[in-house]
């Protein structure tokens, strides 16, 4: 009898893991993916939608088209997991039983947690990115401020990338001289990794982008058009873009599977839940204090797949564990980019920004649909 493997979430991590388990288990596991929309969204593309370099439609594919034929897809929302009974209750009222469960539900954005931020812009949802581009199209001058209103947030390089792409956009429209761009950084430098900051900060200065350090956005005054930090400083704006606070999905919180923000506690190497048997979590879903990014979900997915496949086949856990590998691109504008690579045992390295890495990022974005979800890229 085949094991029942249930995967909650059809994002990058859940999709790769489902495909790999279906392939590697050789009929010993039946895999079901539960996804609320049935549409797979390539979230790294939101940044480009916000500056008009990408069309929303090109970032979305049907989840069914990305899954192996033997994987079942259920388009429904998981409302409760019972780890004792090993069941998942769906919103439709249907119940799925599991032998192994993967939580790949990701994170949700919570702009409503920031006082006064009802009308601020963001590029962390498709709707937010589209609305921001509409606002930029009619922007004629003034101060554009980018701030971070919560930690952790997806894709730590994104705020820096956004101000560089914004600089390019305003130059292309011929209104760069009428605009000030301010980047409010949570840290005392542009980016969390010092070596990467050393590459990026001179470029920010060269492009006339003003950097303010140790500014963790706490509240917004939409009437005075000011934003105030946890550290007690206030900055004025004409157009405000915030990275919203993030938290885990409601089903995690409602099922008691996560911490006070809904992040699932897992072993940082095996990705197994620290409290419940037969449950693994990957990507944004976990409480591992590593970057919330598609890259992490991608590398973790193959580890979780090997773990789940071994469990489904009644074998010992695999020797291969997650080693903390992360590989990200960082756009620096003017058609150039750098990369950031590290793992638990090796500190980060970033090459000098070049056109090569920009084209590599675009190539990755375009070929994603044919390589990543299927588990074809290691």
């Amino acid at each position, binding site marked *: 009898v085949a094991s029942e493997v249930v995967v909650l979430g059809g994002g990058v991590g859940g999709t790769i893991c489902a495909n790999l388990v279906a392939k590697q288990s050789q009929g010993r596991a039946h895999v079901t993916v539960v996804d609320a929309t049935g549409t797979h969204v390539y979230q790294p593309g939101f940044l480009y939608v916000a500056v008009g370099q990408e069309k929303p439609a090109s970032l979305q594919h049907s989840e069914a088209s990305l899954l192996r034929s033997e994987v079942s897809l259920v388009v429904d929302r998981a409302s409760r997991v019972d780890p004792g009974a090993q069941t998942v209750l769906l919103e439709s009222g249907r119940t799925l039983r599991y032998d192994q469960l993967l939580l790949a539900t990701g994170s949700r954005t919570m702009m409503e947690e920031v006082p006064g931020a009802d009308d601020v812009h963001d590029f962390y949802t498709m709707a937010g990115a589209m609305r921001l581009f509409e606002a930029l199209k009619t922007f004629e001058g003034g101060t554009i401020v980018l701030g971070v209103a919560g930690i952790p947030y997806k894709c730590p390089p994104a705020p820096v990338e956004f101000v560089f792409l914004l600089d390019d956009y305003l130059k292309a429209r011929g209104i760069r001289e009428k605009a000030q761009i301010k980047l409010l950084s949570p*840290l005392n430098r542009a980016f*969390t990794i010092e070596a990467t900051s050393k590459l990026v900060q001179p470029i920010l200065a060269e492009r006339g982008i003003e950097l303010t350090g140790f500014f963790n956005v706490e509240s917004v005054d939409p009437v005075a058009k000011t934003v105030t930090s946890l550290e007690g400083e206030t900055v004025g704006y004409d157009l405000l873009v915030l990275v919203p606070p993030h938290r885990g999905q409601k089903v995690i919180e409602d099922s008691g599977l996560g911490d006070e923000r809904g992040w699932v506690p897992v072993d940082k190497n095996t990705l197994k839940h620290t409290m419940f048997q037969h449950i693994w979590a990957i990507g944004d879903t976990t409480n591992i204090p590593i970057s919330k990014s598609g890259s992490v979900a991608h590398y973790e997915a193959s580890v979780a797949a090997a773990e789940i496949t071994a469990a489904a086949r009644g074998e010992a856990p695999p020797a291969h564990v997650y080693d903390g590998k992360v590989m990200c691109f960082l756009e620096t504008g003017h058609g150039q980019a750098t990369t950031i690579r590290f793992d*638990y045992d090796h500190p980060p390295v970033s090459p000098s920004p070049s056109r090569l890495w920009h084209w590599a990022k675009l190539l990755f974005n375009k070929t994603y649909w044919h390589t990543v979800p299927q588990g074809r890229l290691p």
Partner: protein
Amino acid sequence: MSTMQIDKSIDARGMACPGPLMNLIGAIRQGQVGQTFEVLSSDAGSKTDIPAWVAKAKQEMVEVVQDDGYARFIVRKAR
């Protein structure tokens, strides 16, 4: 080592991004005044970065302990 109560501990060793200070700021943002947070960091920069932010944000640095290959920072949310 002291036996004080730690409300939240973050093991950020080997995690360059978002990094120990970002994780500490995140925890303090979510925490209550009076709670104590511990972050473990193997990043050399933390020794200057973390005290600098704690001072700037008017939080309280309780203790910095150097261990084998990493440092342990204990910070109390003061406001």
